[in-house]
């Protein structure tokens, strides 16, 4: 398609990462904390975007993948005393396993049934975290001790409780996820997903294995979301059932819609914008859900392409 745009695509994404890197020393303390959180949650949104934006699969249950990473990392570190990197890997593995299991079952359905099935599976995961409250402490959650979250590297120990280290770790995860999405989107696999979104029947007729490609999309999406969850547990030291609730299935949808579905930069733009909209409005009113609700309705009514999507449509057709 647009192979000539590679240089400026790389330049744009690299530029964004460098800008975010510079912000580590430029942002005031409070906003650096907010940004660390946004970067991790943007990875969650990016994972969601792989399915919703590029493959056209609207899931209402992505909190379960985030929770798989969160608990995969949190429980192994808290109860088994695993070192943080091993906990992170356990989170990824939990996310992958759950994504494959849910994918195999849920992908047998389409459309409305797919949305409800994913919602139901996520609800089962949420209830599981409440049912095993002896281990998870349910809504109250677990707090990981700071020394359990240290990342021992040869010659150095990274301490995620230090704001600057935390920001840089979050940024590293974000950069890796961003690079992965750009690579996927530009690879034949990404093109196949978009083609499935546009016309599934035609792809099947052309001899593509639609189910395998969709399953791969669910797996990639699940692993990215689990990475965000595991990183959240290790960087912020809190693991609670609230992250498995329906609300955390809706939020990535909102962020991706706002930023622009099927754009690589949409998730971070949407997450950033929504966080600051809520942050600013919470100065005037405590009605945070009202803002979320109105944003969803207004976006879907008047602005279905989102910020980056509109940008791409009007002025910058080369955006991936």
């Amino acid at each position, binding site marked *: 398609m647009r192979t000539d745009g590679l240089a400026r695509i790389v330049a744009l994404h690299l530029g964004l990462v460098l800008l975010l890197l510079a912000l580590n020393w430029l942002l005031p303390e409070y906003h650096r904390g907010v940004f660390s959180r946004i970067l991790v949650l943007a990875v969650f949104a990016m994972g969601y975007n792989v399915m919703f934006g590029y493959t056209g699969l609207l899931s209402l249950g992505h909190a379960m993948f985030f929770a798989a990473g969160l608990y995969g990392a949190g429980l192994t570190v808290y109860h088994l005393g695993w070192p943080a990197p091993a906990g992170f890997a356990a989170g990824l593995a939990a996310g992958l396993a759950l994504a494959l299991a849910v994918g195999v079952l849920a992908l047998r359905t389409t459309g409305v049934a797919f949305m409800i099935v994913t919602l139901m599976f996520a609800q089962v995961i949420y209830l599981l975290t409440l049912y095993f409250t002896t281990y998870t402490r349910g809504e109250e959650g677990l707090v990981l001790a700071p020394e359990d979250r240290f990342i021992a590297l040869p010659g150095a120990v990274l301490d995620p409780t230090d704001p600057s280290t935390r920001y840089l770790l979050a940024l590293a995860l974000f950069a890796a996820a961003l690079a992965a999405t750009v690579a996927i989107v530009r690879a034949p696999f990404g093109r196949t997903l978009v083609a499935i979104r546009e016309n599934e029947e035609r792809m099947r007729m052309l001899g593509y294995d639609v189910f395998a490609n969709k399953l791969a999309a669910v797996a990639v999406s699940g692993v990215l979301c689990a990475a965000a969850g595991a990183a959240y547990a290790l960087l912020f030291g809190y693991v609670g059932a609230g992250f498995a609730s329906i609300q955390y299935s809706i939020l990535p949808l909102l962020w991706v819609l706002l930023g622009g579905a099927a754009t690589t930069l949409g998730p971070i733009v949407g997450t950033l914008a929504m966080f600051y909209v809520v942050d600013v409005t919470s100065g005037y009113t405590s009605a945070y*859900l009202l803002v979320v*609700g109105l944003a969803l309705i207004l976006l*879907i009514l008047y602005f279905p392409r989102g910020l980056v999507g509109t940008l791409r449509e009007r002025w910058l057709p080369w955006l991936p």
Partner: protein
Amino acid sequence: MSFGPHLLLATLEGLVTSAVLALMALGLSLVFGVMRVVNVAHGEFFMLGAVVAWWVASIVGGHPAVGFLAALVVSPLVVAAVAFAAERLVLRRLSYEPEATIVATIGLLYIIQQLALTFYGPEARPVEAPFSIRVTLPWFGYSGYKLFVIAVAALLVVATWLMLTRTRAGLLMRATQYDRETAQAFAIPVDRVYAGVFALGAGLAAIAAVLIVPIQQAHYLMGLDPLLLSFIVVIIGGLGSLRGTVLAAVLIGLSDGIISVFFSPTLAKMLATLLVALVLVFRPQGLFGTAPR
């Protein structure tokens, strides 16, 4: 108490759940059947019905029955009006596209929930039951009001059924459900039927809420559990099949009541949810539904 009476108690509790669930799921099923819209805000219409019922009952005063009856009339009307407005202002403009309407009704869910929290507050408030008769059974006394709920719900389900099969409005709805375009070609005002069905569905949820509010207090978060249960019912019953919906409501309500009495409620919910997801996966037309044309 020995096993038999214990089971009877669980069955009665299950029937109360079934009754409320049947009304609520009927509304959801009607909206899905006719409009092909998955209304995620249905639980909030239920909650709104309960909150309005409390509000009406607290204004009216006097004998509890007067307040309750006033609530039973006013609350469904208010909720239906809200739903009607939402349908006209939002859903119609999305031309009922499934994914867009789901996102929009999620937005609606948050808006209604937040408004209830802001104006009604986080407290749970009861509405007094219209009468307090205890029916004495040989083993235990049982609330007469709960039996009344079961009876009223059964009556309303039959009334809805008659409305759908015996009246002109019902005929229009069924025609629209069967084939929207042909219905339109025969000069059926499909657009107005949609608005009416959406309001009717919300009204049914509100009636369910008014009935339950003397048993279970009105709270701004009360909508989520019934919403998920209604989804379960509608799916098990077969999306859009009303007969299946009512049957499934009784089945789910009873099993929920019985499992919750003998086992943990969380386990009951978990099993039911998992079961439903699997039903949708392996038998998408539902247990009682027929395969789509």
